[in-house]
């Protein structure tokens, strides 16, 4: 096997190891984990608050 393939394999395995370790240690990563370091659902709920309060239909624009 050529040396460059071995280098690629080592780099790939190191990256895989980092990913596995971060998953084992519980580092948050993946969909929904990138918004201001808090769950997106909570962030969206906060953002939508001014509108969700108006459920009586009294608000007229």
């Amino acid at each position, binding site marked *: *096997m050529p040396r460059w393939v071995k280098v690629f394999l080592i780099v790939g395995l190191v990256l895989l190891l980092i990913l596995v370790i971060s998953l084992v240690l519980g580092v948050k990563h993946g969909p*929904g984990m*990138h*918004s*201001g370091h808090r769950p997106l659902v909570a962030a*969206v709920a906060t953002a939508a*608050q001014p509108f969700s309060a108006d459920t009586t239909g009294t608000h007229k624009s």
Partner: protein
Amino acid sequence: MSPRLRKLALTAHVTSSVGWLGAVAGSLGLAVAAVVSEDIETVRAVYVTLELTSAYVLVPLAFASLLTGLIQALGTSWGLFRHYWVIVKLVMNLFAAVVLLLYLQTLSDLAGLASAPGTDLDTLRTPSPVLHASAALLLLLIATTLSIFKPRGTTRFGRQV
């Protein structure tokens, strides 16, 4: 494959692959703009644009690159498992396509958040798209370099031919 068909397949592969690289570079530019901009409307527009371009430009180009690469490998003497550089490129392409598909959910969430009125700039701003686009760009640049230099090295299957 006939020489003419082979050239056509190669053209399709180069076009889709380099197009993918260019689209990722454009996405990186947008993602950087979202991190450095102080204008919330710009940041909102970036996340909505990133979601659309990912779904309708990046994903089609990624799969076009994968498909045309497979045709190119299987239809020519290069083969799919005969040369290490072809295998490495295939693995990189598959990895990038899978990560892109998984990342669509994050981009969709970010676009949803950007569309929600009242979201502040700190909530919206995230370095994640910059990191993902940078990694994708690096990966695609390596793949392009491999295609041009075609480093030596044949596998067991390549030596048998």
